[in-house]
């Protein structure tokens, strides 16, 4: 026995020792019991996600009818949604084996390969759609053909082949003239061509259709103006990108500060857009009118005032209808 244990022979100390042992045991058992109860009570087994459920259902449909091309096509599309691109390509290939010209399968395969980064391989099915349909009676309104041209344009941009990209995107825009995504890709291609001014105009066109909630065009405009050594205009674009990212008050402060500089008109138009999205029609009209006073031929200001139902005034005042 250790000499240190001699003291434990004291009855009080023996009681303390016993209490310590009992207390430690109770604490341990209590903690374990609480942990088990808490886990049982609070643990939530996460249900399969929506897409996992869709995959399971569609796989079951294909298992039931393996020769059903529509089911396989649907499974390919569902796999794409689940970002299972290899599986998607397998299903599209199965469809194409039975129906080589199936445009849905070609488009799905092209998209899956493009998203996987296999750009050269993706060109093949997409080009097949173009070849098969570009001379068709309804080629000018064929949304699948438009999508094929668009993806080929995106591939051109990704491969830094702006001339090729612009050709494909031009076809896409002929079919869908208000396709703001295609416009955005055109802007990117123009930047690659070293034409930032043209790119800015294109990004602005794209933003006409999606003025809020789309940040990338503003970021690209900022980059283009920076390339063009126009810091004030770049600052306006940066503020609008901030507004797009919900930094509304910060954007307003920055734009207001820019209303006296070389980018005053753009800043005023930006403030008008912000006021408009805040349902403050009066303030929006006032900002557009101010922009118009500074630049009487500014089409953005004119069209924005028209959209608000406000007649531009040469004197700088506006009249709401």
């Amino acid at each position, binding site marked *: 026995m250790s000499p*240190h244990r001699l003291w434990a022979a004291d009855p009080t100390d023996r009681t*303390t020792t016993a209490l*310590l*042992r009992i*207390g430690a045991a109770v*604490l341990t058992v209590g903690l374990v019991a609480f942990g088990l109860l808490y886990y049982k009570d609070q643990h*939530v087994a996460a249900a399969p*996600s929506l897409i996992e459920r869709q995959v399971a259902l569609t796989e079951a449909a294909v298992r039931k009818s393996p020769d059903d091309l529509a089911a396989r096509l649907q499974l390919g599309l569902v796999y794409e949604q689940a970002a299972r691109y290899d599986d998607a390509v397998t299903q599209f290939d199965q469809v194409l084996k039975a129906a080589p010209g199936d445009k849905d399968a070609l488009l799905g395969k092209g998209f899956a390969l493009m998203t996987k980064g296999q750009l050269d391989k993706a060109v093949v099915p997409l080009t097949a759609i173009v070849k098969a349909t570009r001379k068709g009676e309804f080629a000018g309104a064929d949304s699948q053909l438009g999508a094929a041209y668009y993806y080929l344009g995106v591939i051109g941009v990704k491969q830094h082949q702006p001339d090729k990209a612009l050709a494909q995107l031009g076809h896409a825009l002929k079919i869908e003239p208000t396709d703001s995504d295609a416009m955005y890709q055109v802007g990117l291609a123009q930047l690659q061509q070293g034409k930032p001014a043209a790119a800015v105009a294109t990004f602005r066109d794209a933003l006409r259709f999606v003025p809020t909630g789309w940040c990338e065009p503003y970021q690209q405009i900022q980059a283009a103006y920076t390339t063009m050594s126009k810091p004030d205009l770049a600052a306006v674009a940066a503020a609008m990108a901030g507004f797009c990212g919900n930094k509304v008050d910060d954007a307003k402060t920055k734009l207001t500060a820019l209303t006296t500089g070389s980018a005053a008109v753009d800043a005023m138009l930006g403030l008008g857009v912000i006021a408009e999205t805040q*349902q403050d029609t009066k303030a929006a009209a006032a900002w557009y009118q101010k922009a118009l006073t500074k630049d009487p031929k500014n089409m953005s200001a004119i069209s924005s005032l028209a959209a608000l139902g406000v007649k531009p005034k040469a004197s700088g005042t506006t009249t709401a209808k």
Partner: protein
Amino acid sequence: MTENQTLPDPGGDLLELLDDMSAPPKSPTPAPPVDEARRKRRRIILAILVALLALLVGLFTWYLFNRKPLSELPGLSEARLPSYKTSFYDVAKPLGVAVSPDGSRIYATQSGATPSTIVFDRDGARIGQLTPPATPKTFHVPVYVAVNPTTGDVYVGDRAAGKVYVYDDSGAYRSTFQPKGDVKAISPLGLAVGPDGTLYVADVLSAKPADHRILVLAPDGTVKRVLGKGQLNYPNAIVVGKQGELYVSDSNNGRVVVIDSTGKVSTLVARGVGDGDLGLPRGLAIDDEGRMLVVDTTDHMVRLFTTGSSPTDHPGYVGSFGDEGHDDGKFTFPNGLATDTRGRVYVADRENNRVEVWGY
């Protein structure tokens, strides 16, 4: 390890080991038989043990009474957003959701497929279905659902039928709530039931906002009050506050209002694009911690606010959760919302055909 060093006996006395570890280096001279310092240390350890046991008992007691996550312990529960837990499926286009007083049953109105109200247990298992009465034959679109906090009766507002159906807590159809007096017809959206059985109905009988109102109905159908007439535009969810005030999501006006006992309507949160501003508010709930949750249908998210001591205090914006999409934790045109007293939030995720469960 040298020959002189020895490992403690694993089966030996832990207390002895602790004593030995904290003792001064052993010397050839024997220590005095009674070591006051050791005795003091043991008493301190005993005191700590007692304190830990008391803490555990307190924690156990708090948990048994509240059954909430530990993150909801007093002092920790404010200004936090919930996180996604799971989803309940097998419901088509759910619009409204409500929870039984004990949190064991979740009711979700189903506006798609067969119009009815689906009953889930707390784990998401579908355990029942509240169907409208077979007669009279009419179209049904159940929109919002509310539970009587005292009796557990379930009230389902059917906008197409212009009725409020009442079911008992076992899910059996009990009656159709019939307003008395001048109110001949209603088109119910939001519903709420007070502890005394008073039924609050957001009534949008015509397309004219001037006709939109909140009906306050006694359990026997007598119209006690008509609130907000001419000031609301498609009022959706209603929440009865602790002081008897009513919180209403004034949907097409893009705001949440509070209606006090005098009938005065005050805006709490309005439409805009700033932090915490609303687009199209629909579902609304205030949980037992005083957190106000608002479903912003067109922004596909839920906005969370803290409320003040007075009903008209401006709510403090905490943040938003969810985003547009189909993945877990995302919404596509969410509508109704309910909270339980155990730290859970249920959101009717309409276009994704599910009820999402969030928790703290």
